[in-house]
């Protein structure tokens, strides 16, 4: 009992901070989401409008478009990062000349702020000035203009995200792979398992918790991507890269539509929780059942 009390005392400051900087703002956003509130409307007051904002969101083409674009982005980016990150992690498990230098270079994007990443990629992709369109044209005769081509803009953002965040996946998976016991692998080798069988039946199940944690982190990040996209395309061309984060930003600032913007934020949070829960159930639950 005494140690319990001490535990609560030690936790208290953290809980207070969490309440004021986490729970309270969240509750406020939920509160605002049930209101019509635009400070620059003819009536700038906050007016309770029940579930009207939530009803409106279902029929809002702009929101649905943003949702679609974001889901596509998440699928392309996160899956690619997982695959490439895993392959790189496996590569880094082996010894080869210049490994430490290569690993350092590979990790560099991770320490760059998203806004800088967006700026650098904007510089690299601006037609006439950027090196990417320049060499695509010179080497392959391909004209690339992310200001006019929606697919080019979308794919550029996916590639930029892969470049930026794959190192995180690599580092996490290296940590997971390093900690794996050798016995099951030796046993598999004795039993004559090939590489694919070893991967599916030994490696993958054993690194699944790390994999799930990594997917959660990347999924949540990808769902609220704003800064890099903002710098690179501003959501364009048209609305082709207007991800949910950018859409919320534009709804709240500069449209100053706080009520509806809050509603979208709440919905996005809900969707994130649902997707994470589905992933958790689909990836970890079977494993638990097997154990059971």
């Amino acid at each position: 009992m005494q140690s319990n009390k001490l535990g609560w005392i030690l936790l208290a400051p953290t809980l207070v901070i969490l309440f004021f900087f986490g729970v309270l703002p969240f509750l406020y956003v939920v509160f605002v989401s049930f209101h019509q509130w635009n400070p620059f409307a003819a009536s700038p007051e906050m007016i309770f409008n029940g579930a009207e904002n939530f009803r409106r969101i279902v029929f809002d083409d702009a929101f649905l478009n943003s949702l679609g674009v974001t889901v596509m982005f998440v699928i392309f980016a996160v899956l690619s990062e997982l695959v490439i990150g895993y392959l790189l992690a496996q590569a880094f498990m082996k010894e080869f000349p210049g490994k430490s230098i290569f690993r350092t270079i590979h990790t560099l994007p991770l320490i760059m702020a998203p806004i800088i990443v967006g700026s650098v990629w904007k510089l690299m992709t601006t037609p006439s000035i950027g090196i990417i369109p320049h060499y695509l044209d010179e080497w392959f005769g391909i004209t690339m203009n992310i200001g006019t081509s929606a697919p080019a803009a979308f794919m550029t953002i996916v590639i930029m995200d892969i470049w930026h965040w794959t190192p995180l996946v690599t580092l996490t998976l290296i940590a997971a792979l390093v900690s794996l016991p050798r016995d099951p692998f030796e046993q598999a080798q004795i039993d004559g398992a090939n590489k694919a069988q070893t991967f599916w039946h030994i490696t993958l199940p054993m690194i699944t918790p790390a994999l799930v944690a990594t997917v959660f982190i990347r999924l949540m990040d990808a769902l609220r991507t704003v800064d890099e996209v903002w710098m690179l395309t501003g959501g364009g061309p048209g609305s082709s890269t207007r991800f949910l984060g950018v859409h919320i930003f534009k709804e709240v600032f500069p449209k100053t539509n706080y009520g509806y913007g809050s509603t979208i934020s709440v919905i996005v949070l809900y969707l994130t929780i649902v997707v994470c829960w589905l992933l958790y159930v689909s990836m970890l639950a079977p494993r638990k059942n097997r154990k059971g």
Partner: protein
Amino acid sequence: MNFALKVGVSALAMAVASSAAYADDAFWKEAAKPYQDVTLRGVTESTPPSNYIREVLAPEFEELTGIRVDIETTSWDQMYDKAIKDMEAGTGIYDMVFIEQDIVYSYLARDFLTDTTKLLADNPDLKAPTYSEDNFTTFANYFRGENGDLYGVPMEAFIKIYLYRTDLFNDAEIKAAFKEQTGRELVPATTHAEYAEIAQFFTKWGEDHDMDLWGTTAQAHTGHPASWYEFFETIAPTFGVYNWGIDADNNFAASVANGGEMNSDEAKEAMKWWLSMRDIAPPESNASTWTEVGTTFGAGRVAQGLVYGENAGWIAADETKSLVVGNVGVALPPLQDGVMEEVEGGTGYIGYYDGGAFGIPSTSKSQEAAMLFLQYIGQDEVQPDWAVAAPRVTNKTTYDAPKVKAMNEELGGYYDLLRDKGYLFAGAPAYPFHAQVREATAPILYQILTGDLGPDEGLDQMAAKAEAELTDLGYRK
């Protein structure tokens, strides 16, 4: 005048000048005494005029008064974001905020700003002898409330002008080729047809001579408000479509069907002309905001273009940034027939008179000290250097300063144009919903720019969307 008399007069003049300077210094030191522990915080966009405040005027003021001034220069979006959040929440972080010419009406509608005229009237001890509202050009009127009082001290004011390359326009070979091809002299365009002809000529000339040269600029970003402003504040007025095509006196009608002009024949013609120019502009135009348009011109990639005047200074005179120094001419934008007569007659305007002021949020906790700083930057005395560093003019006497006259030569007569023809330009319409309508309609404009929507259909949709947004906001009944 004999030598003794000259010496005597000079000595007297110096004595008067030094005593006046001393008296001024004495005022600032005395007035600042109660605010020695104050740190003023301001937020503004990172532009040449604002950077001059941060790097020159703020340190000068700090040295003179002992009042610390922190000026935060940031991106256009962040500047709004931070200022509005602060004023909306009433946190009082900022003592000075940049008020762009169009957002001022929203701020006034929300009582976000301090009445500087009243503040000085209520605190006569704060009134600097060198500061007077009479010093300002008529641009200051955009920052006056309904009571006629000033709610912001103007800090930048410039027009969006037609810049052209004098080295290309005066090149004998080019002139001859143009004459042969078009049958007329190569001179700055006064009509859209002439402008288009020149643009097409130079784009072709660049292709034929393997040069990185195009005939026109285009501020046509497909995901940034810059393109929206380019169309509604630069292009549309030259076709006779004013105030974004919204009729405030007619229940804020935007569509032709309801009495507005956002989708009028003139607006549609303007859009088609603009798109045709965008198509022969440098490839980066689809990703260009006002900044990149300036950079494109400064890099010598275009023969002519419509450029914000705040960039004209470095383009024409800063060799570290510009490749066309000494080769820049200025002119009025090309106009549709009848527009100039209409504007001279008092209806409409031919382009955007952009700029902004520094205002004091009602939530500031150091309003008196902030007022001292605003007066400092509003004096005639600090204007000439500021106008040379960044081509903005807010005070009437600035035009007469020798260094400004010299700069005027370098800028191809830009200051003369601003002084003599500034009245033809206008700031944004007095709507309290600028950002809201812009953001509501911008996605449709971007679709027009990407070709997903035709200009006619797109403008029809924009007009309908503008009216819907104004209805949602409660302005349109």
